[in-house]
């Protein structure tokens, strides 16, 4: 890609991950400027369409995390106004944002994902779904992880060690979404494999391991706090585990129809040595400390190269 383009970097917005998004966007802007593009930063709000009409960008780089940016809303809107954009299309975004849907698709495709059920708030209120809880508990066993179906941040991710803790965990998770995922807790090593499109198709990057500094593995929140976790890249894993993790990530990338870039999160279970796919993220963080840039770097792909490839993805769909 040698043409200088007019790139609108869409960032910020009003999600809980606004701050991460602003940092991701700023970092991408620097790279775009180094690559010689004209950069227009847009903090997304009600004026977005007007702004896009004024600016008339050649392409939009989506650095929005959370709803709007990741759930297909922005992608659909950009298609409506005819602006090419980076990354996955609406369908892939919708699949990845909805952890429950993504897990159904993975399970149907034979990709290992921890066993799960999901609950909607409405079904509790209107269909007596609470009475199904004992069955869910006995099917999955404790401890359980409860996650808002569409929330990307660690907020709202709850543990339940026993049945007494489950109602509180559910209410907590329902604070962030009307649908929640109830998943068997896999104790093990926390891995992430990013996949980027390259000259010869999607390419899995080296595995990153998130190692919590503190041992309390139930404290999900602090686990994802900056400074509470050390990232190791490439992760120190047996070769076959690395290969298998990358293979699974690639399978998930293709299954969900991702494009440009995605990050797939996995667990390597202590007890079984099995790999389990938790979820995929279509707008991985792009900050200085995010996993994707680190992984790319470990594969010899500089951040600028990464951004250049991501930009290309807008023109190859």
């Amino acid at each position: 890609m040698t043409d200088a383009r007019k790139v609108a970097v869409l960032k910020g917005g009003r999600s809980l991950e606004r701050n991460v998004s602003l940092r991701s966007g700023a970092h991408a802007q620097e790279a775009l400027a180094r690559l010689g593009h004209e950069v227009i930063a847009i903090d997304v709000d009600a004026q977005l369409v007007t702004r896009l009409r004024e600016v008339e960008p050649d392409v939009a780089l989506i650095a929005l995390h959370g709803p709007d940016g990741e759930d297909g809303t922005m992608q659909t809107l950009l298609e409506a106004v005819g602006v090419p954009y980076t990354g996955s299309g609406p369908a892939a975004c919708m699949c990845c944002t909805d952890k429950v849907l993504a897990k159904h698709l993975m399970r149907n495709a034979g990709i290992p994902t921890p066993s799960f059920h999901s609950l909607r708030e409405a079904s509790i209120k209107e269909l007596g779904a609470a009475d199904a809880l004992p069955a869910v508990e006995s099917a999955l066993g404790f401890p359980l992880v409860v996650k808002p179906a569409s929330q990307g941040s660690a907020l709202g991710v709850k543990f339940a060690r026993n049945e007494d803790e489950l109602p509180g965990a559910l209410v907590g998770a329902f604070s962030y979404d009307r649908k929640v995922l109830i998943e068997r807790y896999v104790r093990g090593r926390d891995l992430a494999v990013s996949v980027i499109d390259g000259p010869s198709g999607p390419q899995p990057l080296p595995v990153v391991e998130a190692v919590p500094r503190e041992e309390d593995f139930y404290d999900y929140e602090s686990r994802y706090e900056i400074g509470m976790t050390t990232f190791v890249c490439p992760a120190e894993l047996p070769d076959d585990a690395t290969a298998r993790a990358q293979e699974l990530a690639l399978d998930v990338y293709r299954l969900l129809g991702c494009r440009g870039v995605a990050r797939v999160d996995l667990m390597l279970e202590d007890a079984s040595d099995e790999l389990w796919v938790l979820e995929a993220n279509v707008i991985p963080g792009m900050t200085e400390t995010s996993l994707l840039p680190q992984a790319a770097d470990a594969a010899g792909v500089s951040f600028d190269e990464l951004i250049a490839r991501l930009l290309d993805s807008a023109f190859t769909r």
Partner: protein
Amino acid sequence: MTRSISGAGGGRRARPTAHELARYEALFAARTRGMKSSAMREMMALTERPDVISLAGGLPDTSTFAPELYAKLMSQVAAEQTARALQYGPTEGMAGAVECIVEVMAAEGTLVDPDEVIVTTGGQQVIDLVCKTLIDPGDVIVAEAPTYPGAVPTFSAYQAEVEQIDMDADGMPIDELESVLDRLQAQGRRPKFIYTIPNFQNPGGVTMSLARRRRLVEVAHERELLILEDNPYGLLRYEGEPLPTLYSLDAQVGRTRAAADLVIYLGTFSKILSPGLRLGWAVAPRPVLEKLNLGKQGADLCSSSVTQLFVAEYFKEQQGRGEPRWLGYLEQLKELYRRRRDVMLAALDEHFGEQARWTKPEGGLFVWATLDDRIDTTDLLAQARESEGVAFVPGRAAYVDGQRGSCSMRLNFAGVPDDDIREGIRRIGRVVHEQLGLYGTLSGSSPAAKPLVATEPAGGGPKQTSPGLADVVALPRRDRESATRRQKDR
């Protein structure tokens, strides 16, 4: 925004960003590990949106300050003291500002020697300088539980270990303090100072009783410990009799000089005038003061000359019969805040239901409300913000471990118009009601979203007539519920 380096696209891949995390991580000081940016704090940052009613701020209402007076004073400073206003000032502060500080403290019955005052950039800087002066990594600070959320990151940055002591309606129980101090001593740990906000505590809203104030000063003397007395709101009392500051009690302990030996006093113009001025102060024993001064030199050399001159001009202003105008403004603020407090308390009565309780502060800016213990206020905030457009400070922010206080919240009434207070509380109440209904359904205790547990209001019920910090709501109820559910399961 300009198309600067056109044509440089393909060939040049300048400045690759290698292993940035690892690169910087290796350079960071160990203390930065304590500087956490928590998801909760990020979420709180998002509450500052125009479409959200925020009861989360620590704000006074600056819209009450007369614009023409502000303009007049600023013009005076600009026209008559141009060079001084634009120049550096002394680290300890400008004499004119120090005189105002002495006057403010005298209004609270506390006499201080101007030579023992240092002007700081907001009260927050005092907390930072005191830690800088006193705390080695691992040293212990004893604080109230809950404590000022803004002090938590400062304590963490200096790698202090913080022991928090639960308060009751009379503030920090000093016998509890003593047993904590005994325990620390037995463990060979080193308490350096006791951090307290005796008046209308932030966030707890309670006031330390006179007996406890006296005893606290005695304990400090018995054990040679410093006290950091944080008193931003002392003059904002809406009812009841003013109590002496710890500083003045310490000064009475009967040394030859009329100054405190072991109390470092923190004051600020933020709540009686303006936080935008960024002017606070410390009064401290001279050896401590010297170190604070050195610390301040390293931090910012001096506080703003412009705002110090502004304050000095403001304090010269008089209203009828020679009364200082700042006292008149203070009365105006007190009247406004008293009314808003009452609006909030009434709204809480109406919307927070049987299970909640809250403090009834005699002054200050905040009410501390504690809900049913099945509510986690951090999660509640996420839902309240998103679906109801209302925000507050979740209780966990007031605990150094970030875990306790999970069913409490801090509510600001001072900086919020009456209607917004009513509407904000109504909306929070609605989310609480909804969450409890859902909890009830999930735990099998109550299919309806109606009152969950009207049967056992723990200890006194919600409508407190005297100030009191809520107890944690009694637990047995939950056991009963899960017992019910277990039976159902069989």
